[in-house]
C-alpha cells in the first residue's frame, strides 16, 4: 500500500496546479456568465433568470451592427498585421544569427512600454497639428491638415495595427527560428531556388506561428476598448467600448456580462478555428 502518505503531497500539488487557475480564471468567467442571465431591476442586480440581455444584443440600438463592424475592423487589422509580421519575422530570420536577437528585440521593444504612452504618442503623430500632418505641410504635399487621421475608424485601424504588431512578430519569428538550419541547405542542394524554399519549407513550417499570430491579433484587437476611445472619437464605437460602457458608465452589469460572454465566445471561436486549421499540421 503506497498509502495515504504519498497521496497528500500529490493532492496538494494538484490543488496548487488546478486550484489557482480555478480561482483566478474560471471563477470570474463563471460569475459573469451567471450575471449575464440575471435581471437588472431599478439599478439593482437581482438573481432572477432571464435571456433579455442576450435578446437586447440582437434587437436593441444597433448592437449587432457595432459587433459586425468591430469583427470587420479586427479582421482587417489581423490580415494587415499577419502579413506585415510575416515579412518582419522573415527579414529577421534571414539576417546573420548573431544579430537576429538584437533585431527581434528592437521590433518587440514597444511591448515593454506603457500602453497609454504609446496611444498618446500615436495621437501626437496623427493629430491635426501632429507630426504627420506638419511633415506633409512642410513638404508642401498638402494644403491643409488631414483631419480624418485622428478620431476616425482609420485612426483606430492604424493605432491597433501599430500597437499589436509585436504580438504577431513574436510567434512567427519563433516558428521560423525552429526550422532546422540544414533544411534550407538540403533544399538548395536538391536544386531548389529561394522561391521553392519559401514555398515548400519556410511557409509550411511558419504556419503554426502565423496562425497563432492571427489569433493573438484578432482576440486582442477585438476586445480592446482603450484605443477606440482615445483615437476613435464618436465614430469609433467598437464592441469593446460597449462592454466597457455597460460596466463603467451605464452600470448595467447583466447586459455588460452578456456582451462579455459574446466577446468571449467570439474569441473562443477564433481559437477553435485556428485549432482546426493546425490539426492538419504534423507534429514531429
Amino acid at each position, binding site marked *: 500500500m503506497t498509502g495515504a502518505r504519498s497521496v497528500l503531497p500529490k493532492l496538494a500539488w494538484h490543488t496548487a496546479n488546478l486550484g489557482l487557475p480555478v480561482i483566478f480564471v474560471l471563477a470570474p468567467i463563471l460569475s459573469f456568465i451567471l450575471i449575464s442571465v440575471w435581471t437588472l431591476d431599478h439599478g439593482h442586480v437581482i438573481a432572477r433568470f432571464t435571456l433579455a440581455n442576450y435578446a437586447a444584443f440582437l434587437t436593441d440600438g444597433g448592437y449587432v451592427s457595432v459587433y459586425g463592424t468591430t469583427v470587420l475592423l479586427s479582421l482587417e487589422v489581423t490580415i494587415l498585421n499577419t502579413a506585415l509580421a510575416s515579412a518582419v519575422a522573415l527579414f529577421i530570420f534571414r539576417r546573420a544569427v548573431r544579430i537576429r536577437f538584437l533585431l527581434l528585440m528592437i521590433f518587440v521593444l514597444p511591448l515593454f512600454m506603457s500602453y497609454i504612452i504609446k496611444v498618446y504618442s500615436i495621437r501626437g503623430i496623427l493629430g491635426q497639428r501632429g507630426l504627420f500632418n506638419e511633415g506633409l505641410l512642410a513638404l508642401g504635399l498638402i494644403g491643409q491638415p488631414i483631419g480624418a487621421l485622428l478620431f476616425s475608424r482609420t485612426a483606430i485601424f492604424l493605432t491597433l495595427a501599430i500597437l499589436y504588431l509585436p504580438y504577431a512578430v513574436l510567434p512567427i519569428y519563433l516558428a521560423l527560428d525552429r526550422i*532546422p538550419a*540544414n533544411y534550407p541547405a538540403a*533544399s538548395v*542542394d*536538391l*536544386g*531548389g*531556388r529561394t522561391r*521553392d524554399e519559401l514555398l515548400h519549407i519556410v511557409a509550411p513550417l511558419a504556419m503554426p506561428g502565423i496562425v497563432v499570430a492571427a489569433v493573438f491579433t484578432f482576440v486582442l484587437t477585438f476586445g480592446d476598448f482603450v484605443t477606440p476611445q482615445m483615437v476613435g472619437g464618436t465614430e469609433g464605437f467598437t464592441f469593446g467600448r460597449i462592454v466597457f460602457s455597460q460596466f463603467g458608465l451605464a452600470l448595467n452589469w447583466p447586459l455588460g456580462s452578456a456582451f462579455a460572454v459574446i466577446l468571449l465566445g467570439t474569441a473562443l471561436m477564433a481559437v477553435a478555428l485556428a485549432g482546426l486549421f493546425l490539426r492538419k499540421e504534423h507534429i514531429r
Partner: protein
Amino acid sequence: MPTMAGRAQRADDVARPGPAGSSPASLRPQGAPADAPNSGSERLLPLLHVENVTKRYGATTVLHDVDLRVADNEFLTILGPSGSGKTTILRIIGGFESIDRGRLMFDGRDLAHVPINRRPFNTVFQDYALFHHMSVRKNVGYGLRVRGTPRQDIARRVAEVLATVGLDEFGDRYPAQLSGGQRQRVALARAIVCEPRLILLDEPLAALDVNLRAQMQRFLKDLQRRLGIAFVFITHDQEEAIVLSDRIVVVRDGRVEQDGTPHEVYHRPRTSFVANFLGENNLIDGKVSGVDGGMVRVETPLGMFAGTASGPVSVGRPVLLAVRPEHIAAAPGGANEIAGTVTDIRFLGPTATLDVSPTTAPRLTIKLRQLGGAVAMAPGERVTVSWSPADTAVIAQGPTEPGRAGSAPP
C-alpha cells in the same frame, strides 16, 4: 583495431617500392593494374578535381593546398579526425563554402560560378535533414518537384528509387515514423532521385548503432556499385573507410596526408600519422643505413632491421619503421628479430594480443596479435619475436613532409 587479414593479397604490394606514393591520384579505372602507365597524356580526366584548394576563416587556414580527384564511379572516402577539415572539403564541393585559393573542376569545367542548386551533386547530410513536415514520398520527390518534373513522372521515379533503397512500403510515412536506418535510406533515396553524377555523404552512419552501421555499410557499398555514381564519403572511422572505399584520402590539420587504396594506406603508410590513425602499429625510430632497390636497411636502438620503403629514402635519412601487430610472430625465423620478455597477454576472442618488452630496451613495448586467441605462453617468459621486411613500412621523417609530396599534382 586492425581488421584486415590481407597477408595473401599483400604479395603484389611488396614487389613495388611504393607505387602508391608516386601515383597518388590513382585515376586508373578500377581493376586495372596499379602500375599501369600513368603518364600525363594518357591520364583519364577526373570527374571532380579539387585543385590545390586553400580555405581560411579569418586568420586561421583550415585547408592548405588540398588536392584531390574523384574518378567516375569511385567510392572515395575522406578520412580524418574531427577538426581535420574533411567536412570543409565536402562543403566546398557542395558549394556551401567559398574557396580562397585553388579551383574546383568538374568534368573539366570550373565550378566557381555554378550555384549550389545547379551543381550535379547531391548531399546526404549528417543528420539527414529530412523535411519533417513532408511524407517520405514528398521528401524523395523534392528534387524533381523543384525542377518542374511532371507529376506522374515524379510518382514513377520516386517509386523506383524507394524500391532501390528497399522502402517501397513507406512512401506515406513521415520521417518521425521511421527508424534511424530507414531515415538514412530515405536521405539516400532523396539524394539519388535526380541522378546526380556524384553524391556527397557527410558521416551519414555516425548516428547509427553498431549493428545497424555494419548493415548500412554493406547497403551503401552495394548501392554505389549498382548505381555507378561516384560517392565522396566522409568519416572519422578508419575501419569504415577501409571496408567501404575504393580509395581513401587521409587528411589532418587541413592537409592531405596520404591518398591511396585502402591497401596502400593500411600497409604502406607514408606518414607516422597515417600509420597511427589506421589501426595499430608498432613504430620504431631509426636511420637509413642502406638502400637496395625497394629494400631499406634501418639502424635502430633495437638493432638493424630491413623494411620496404613507402616513398623515396636515402642513406642517413631519419625514418620510422611501422609493423602491424598481426604481422609479428612470437617465434624466431624472420629477417627481423627481437629478443624480449612477455609482459602481458590479453585474450580478445578471435585473437589475442601480447606485449613484449625488448631485452635491449625494456621500456619499449612490442605488440603482437595472434590469431586463434590461444597463446601457449605466460607473462615473464622469454621470447624471440620476428617479422618479415615485406611487412615493415619505412616512413621517411624529417625536413620534407612526405604526406604533402604525395598529394601534389604531377
